[in-house]
């Protein structure tokens, strides 16, 4: 399978609808200035793969909904007359077989309530995780997601902690 694109809607620093991709089959590098939104993209990928909120930076899941960048007290002006968004959506578009796409989608409200869809059809979290697992995309304490500053931490692990890396959900 292959990752085709990620669609973000009001997720962290991504106001409105933003599409990231298409990703080539090979090696893509994500670049840009400090604070630009690169790690936020990684958070979006963890989020849409169903990772629990403690894996995302910051305490409360509802905080991932876009909140304006203006100084406290200023009006929310990016979306001009529109009110602040009440939910964030991330879609992961995945080519599970040649020329056949699956769209995994997770929405969260400002109050931290998540809903899940596979190809626009609402499913339970259990079904969602099962569908991800079926295409080998279940993200446990995986070796396929490496967060900022985590590489050094791996080298510092005790033997018992290293053993945990070998316990993958296949």
């Amino acid at each position: 399978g292959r990752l085709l694109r990620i669609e973000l809607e009001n997720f962290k620093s991504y106001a409105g609808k933003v599409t990231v991709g298409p990703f080539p089959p090979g090696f893509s590098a994500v670049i840009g200035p400090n604070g630009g939104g690169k790690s936020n993209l990684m958070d979006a990928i963890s989020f849409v793969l169903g990772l629990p909120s403690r894996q995302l930076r910051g305490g409360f899941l509802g905080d991932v909904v876009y909140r304006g960048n203006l100084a406290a007290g200023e009006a929310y002006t990016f979306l001009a007359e529109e009110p602040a968004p009440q939910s964030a959506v991330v879609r992961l578009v995945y080519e599970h077989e040649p020329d056949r796409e699956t769209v995994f989608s997770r929405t969260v409200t400002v109050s931290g309530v998540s809903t899940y869809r596979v190809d626009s059809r609402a499913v339970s979290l259990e079904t969602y995780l099962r569908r991800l697992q079926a295409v080998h995309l279940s993200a446990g304490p995986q070796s396929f997601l490496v967060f900022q500053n985590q590489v050094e931490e791996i080298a510092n692990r005790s033997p018992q902690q290293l053993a945990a890396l070998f316990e993958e959900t296949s």
Partner: protein
Amino acid sequence: RTRRFLEYFRTVSAAIDGIYKQLTRAPTAPLGGIAQLQLESEREPYRYGVKYYAMPPGKRYRDMEQLSGGERSVAALALLFALQAARPSPFLVMDEIDAALDPLNVQRVSRYLRERAADESPAQSVVISLKDAFYENANALVGIYRDPSAGHASRVLTLDLDAFGAVSLGDEGGGA
């Protein structure tokens, strides 16, 4: 469960030295370093854990703790890539894995990702980096920035590097 663990462990253990050598080979050290994984106990693997030994070229064996920052990063990446070689995920997503690497190690890691993309399947990777020596080896660039005309929200530009042919950014400057 223990049987699956042992099976997986053995495959990773067989792969790690080759990958570590690929990440540590240099003109001054054509053989590269040595890496090894050891199970403290085959019957209770989780309880006693997995010991990881990595020896950079030209150095005697030292605890992971005594390696330098960059040496530890290379060792950790070899382990991650070995886990992937044994049981590949459809794609890898990594954030600033090159933070502690000197320019030569940056080259080795980015070339590993490039070569892996060329010959393995699946071999897709999405890697965040601040270093041009790293991202110049990518197949595509995804640029993320704050757009002042969009209230400083994050916006994205994608660039297919392969469309430009095999030009290294480092060559344009005549070796600056």
